[in-house]
């Protein structure tokens, strides 16, 4: 039972890391390879802020800083390249990942850093006859809050409507007079802000190193492809499913655990090439 909860924690972590990618892909039809780099940058920013002002301030500052960076990214990278093949943006953001890694290594050094969980969540919670770290439960709660918040925002606000419309069919949405460039700065900012937020939330669970961004992005890719690239429900289900299977894999077949998410993905793509909840091409 504890293992199932651990799987939920990992799934929540995957969801938080990946959902920003889906948001940006939905509106811009580009894959942001630097997403993992932004996640890492968010973790480092919060590391520094938390050292002075505490964890929660770190969370807010890092999400805000990354959102600002996202707005710049949209203005100076995504928008000028909007007419190009999406591969171009993929490659450019891939190059950006290298730059971000170098910046982080220069500012924070290349040694591993660790972040303590906030004191209020540093304890353990008794559960199923054993105890469970409170912070890990918080990760699940945070994922649920973000998922619910996004769902409400996407269903009830005008921009949410644009985002949903655009992720179904960006061309028709544009023809209906929706200024996708106008809303995309905001949407990309939220997407990268989520990267910063998830980086911060993940930081007490991971050791921070400049190369972590490259590895996180791989897990995110598996999740979003399985989920169907544009679907918010899809990415949530995919993250939880993969989190669960991966975690059970670690318990029972540790050598092959890293293959488990791929096996799930291969299975899903064989049955549904467009992903769990994808809308075809």
């Amino acid at each position, binding site marked *: 039972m504890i293992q199932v909860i651990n799987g939920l924690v990992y799934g929540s972590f995957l969801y938080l890391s990946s959902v920003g990618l889906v948001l940006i892909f939905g509106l811009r039809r580009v894959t942001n390879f630097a997403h993992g780099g932004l996640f890492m940058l968010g973790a480092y920013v919060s590391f520094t802020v938390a050292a002075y002002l505490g964890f929660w301030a770190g969370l807010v500052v890092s999400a805000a800083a990354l959102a600002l960076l996202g707005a710049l990214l949209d203005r100076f990278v995504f928008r000028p390249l909007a007419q190009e093949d999406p591969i171009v943006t993929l490659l450019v953001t891939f190059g950006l990942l290298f730059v971000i890694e170098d910046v982080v290594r220069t500012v924070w050094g290349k040694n591993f850093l660790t972040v303590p969980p906030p004191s209020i969540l540093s304890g353990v919670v008794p559960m199923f006859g054993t105890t469970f770290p409170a912070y890990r439960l918080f990760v699940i709660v945070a994922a649920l809050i973000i998922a619910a918040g996004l769902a409400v925002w996407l269903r009830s606000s005008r921009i949410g409507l644009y985002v949903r419309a655009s992720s179904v069919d960006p061309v028709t949405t544009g023809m209906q007079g929706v200024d996708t460039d106008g809303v995309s700065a905001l949407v990309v900012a939220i997407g990268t802000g989520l990267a910063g937020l998830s980086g911060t939330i993940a930081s007490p669970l991971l050791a921070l190193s400049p190369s972590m961004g490259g590895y996180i992005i791989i897990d995110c890719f598996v999740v979003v492809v399985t989920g169907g690239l544009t679907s918010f429900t899809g990415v949530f289900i995919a993250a939880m499913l993969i989190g669960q299977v991966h975690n059970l894999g670690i318990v029972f077949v540790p050598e092959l655990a890293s293959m488990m998410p*791929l096996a799930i993905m291969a299975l899903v793509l064989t049955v549904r090439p467009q992903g769990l909840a994808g809308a075809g091409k």
Partner: protein
Amino acid sequence: MTAPVNEPFLAVTPPAARRSNLLLAPAMIASLGLGILAPAIVSSPLMLTLMTQAVIGAVLATGVGFLMRQNGVASFGHAAFFGLAAYIVALNGKFGLMPTEAAILLAVVLPAILAFVAGLGIVRLPALAFSMLTLAVAQALHEIFLRWRELASGDDGMAVRLPSTLFGLDVAVFQRPASMFVVCWSVLVLIIGVLWLIARSHFGLLTIAIRENEERARYIGHETVLPRALTYSLSAAVAALGGVLFVLYNAFVTPETLDWSLSGEGLIMAVIGGARVIWGPALGAIIFFIFKDAAGDFTEHWQAIIGMTFILVTVWAPNGVSGLLFHLVSKLKARAR
């Protein structure tokens, strides 16, 4: 009127292409000669080591670039084939399953087959999903060799037991930079020659047609998945050859040969060199290694520099350095006229 006929792959090339194929032979002989002379001219062993590494990198980049050129997709996972080939030779040395020559053959063929089978599925996906999947699959393979310590001693890597003679040559030939450079260079030239012929064949043109417009190619009666899967397989075989050269030269292999950062380097070399021409990625590899060596002397920020260069080339010179060279040559020609 008539049902569309699928011509066989690698059908006879049209006469126009065949005439320019005549240029290939002298170009290859000249390049081979240049490679054989190089160790005589370059006496510094350090330089020769660097050059050998660069040429092995060039083989990997040529594989990545060929896929970009023919299929129009970017692979972030070619290290999988490179590293897998290296590990096949290494594991054969450990368990002594077959003669090393046979293992080398297997090390090229098996990755090609795996790529073909995987390719049948993943080439259908949109280009972005394709890129993401190549990365994920390669990284999973990396994890296996990293975690499965009994098989390949994980992170520590494994020393590779090689026989004293290989293909009738003393094994030292493959491990001394001066002679290994010639071997790697010759393999690279041959690969480029073969890929050049394939790119000009019916099959090569068909894949380009599919790259340009898959739907239209299908409407005029071509099967479109198989050619792309074959191209993917071919480019995997090239990367695997790079892995074979790597393992023969170093006689040591670590999971780093499978890591995504190596795949990324291959892609960077291919983009910087320019994948429009077959030899562009190889040129990119050589630039990459010279640049890396030079930058290492005066700055710590090699990574940021290469990242920025990569971005600038992608946006402003999508055909890479080789594209710029062509542009320059055609300008000079126009001026001479």
